[in-house]
């Protein structure tokens, strides 16, 4: 039985070394996948306008608006954010602007 970690499994692995049944033995292994590079528009927060109402945090499909242990809205996680703009429209205070993402 092979209990390989996700990080040891890639396109070159042979069938003998793959995990049985294509099981994955750890949770949340997708965190190494950068989906931020899909983005064409980028959300930018204006902290002066942010009232910490947190209404933008639950609407994100990509877990890119963290809420800290103190209950404060954190900075965007641009590693995952795909730039959908839902948060920007959900902010009642116009604190999130969508700008062209120059890479």
């Amino acid at each position: 039985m092979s209990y390989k970690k996700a990080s040891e499994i890639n396109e070159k692995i042979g069938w003998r070394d793959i995990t049985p049944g294509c099981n994955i033995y750890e949770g949340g292994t997708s965190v190494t996948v950068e989906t931020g590079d899909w983005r064409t528009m980028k959300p930018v927060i204006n902290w002066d306008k942010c009232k910490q109402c947190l209404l933008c945090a639950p609407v994100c499909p990509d877990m890119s608006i963290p809420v800290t242990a103190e209950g404060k809205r954190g900075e965007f996680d641009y590693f995952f954010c795909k730039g959908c703009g839902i948060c920007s429209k959900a902010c009642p205070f116009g604190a999130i602007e969508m700008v062209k993402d120059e890479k």
Partner: protein
Amino acid sequence: MSYNLKENLMREERLAGGHRMCAGCGSPIAIRTVLRQLEPGDKAVVTGATSCMEVSTFMYPYTAWKESFIHNAFENAAATCSGVETAYRALKKQGKLDDTYKFIAFGGDGGTYDIGFQSLSGAMERGHDMVYVCYDNEAYMNTGIQRSSSTPRFADTTTTPQGSVIPGKIQNKKDLTKIMVAHGIPYVAQTTFIGNFKDICEKAHKAIYTPGAAFLNVMAPCPRGWRYPSEDMMKVCKAAVETCVWPLFEVVEGKYYLSYEPKNKLPVEEYLKMQGRFAHMFKPGNEWMIEAFQQEVDRRWENLLALCNL
């Protein structure tokens, strides 16, 4: 405990980033919100029906699920979940397991209203202690926007193309939530993403922690298939609720409760006009389509009000 957005958001995030669903997809919002309602310390076993959600969150060896996740096939998420729940009860009885696990099945509308319907119906009838969550985006999105029995009448899909032959989908949407109520299970609810997420969070918590079988139907828009700009998700959800196209209600032990009654029920155009899949309904000569759509929404809304004794 009464709902508090901040407290709710400070809980553990149980879905990881790096999944491959489209930008602005409603499905991961439904999943992360439902999973956040697990009490801290409780674990879950999740089963998923083949769908956009499944293929994009569970791409070997990358899983976005922090909980145990099983993909079996398209048609048997509920059966798989019910089997694991039964094994868990047996192990608990034998004293071989201490942790508390909750059992949650997720499926798209294709996997729920159509192809997984018999396994869902069976699992609910047998009364397993589980919740089945349908994220309803009203078509088979993963394979290219084919109509399902959840697709509303007149929607333009790749298998119901609107034109001179047909006006989009010919049949009305199946009312699955009421069919689940007819199973006589202790908890059934219909919800979507509104404001501070109180409605969906409270319903998901009840669904998970009501002993026995529960069913949650979450309208989860698909910007790709519905053809609206992805940033408008919350506007689309609000319009669905304010026009009574997607009423919010719950049914506890067979008793209906309306969760929200719009002060001014808006005409269905306010919802339809946002989405490309309904654009042809606004062409001259097609006014009858909007009238027919309105009539069906009104009929179902009146029926729901009567069931709620309102």
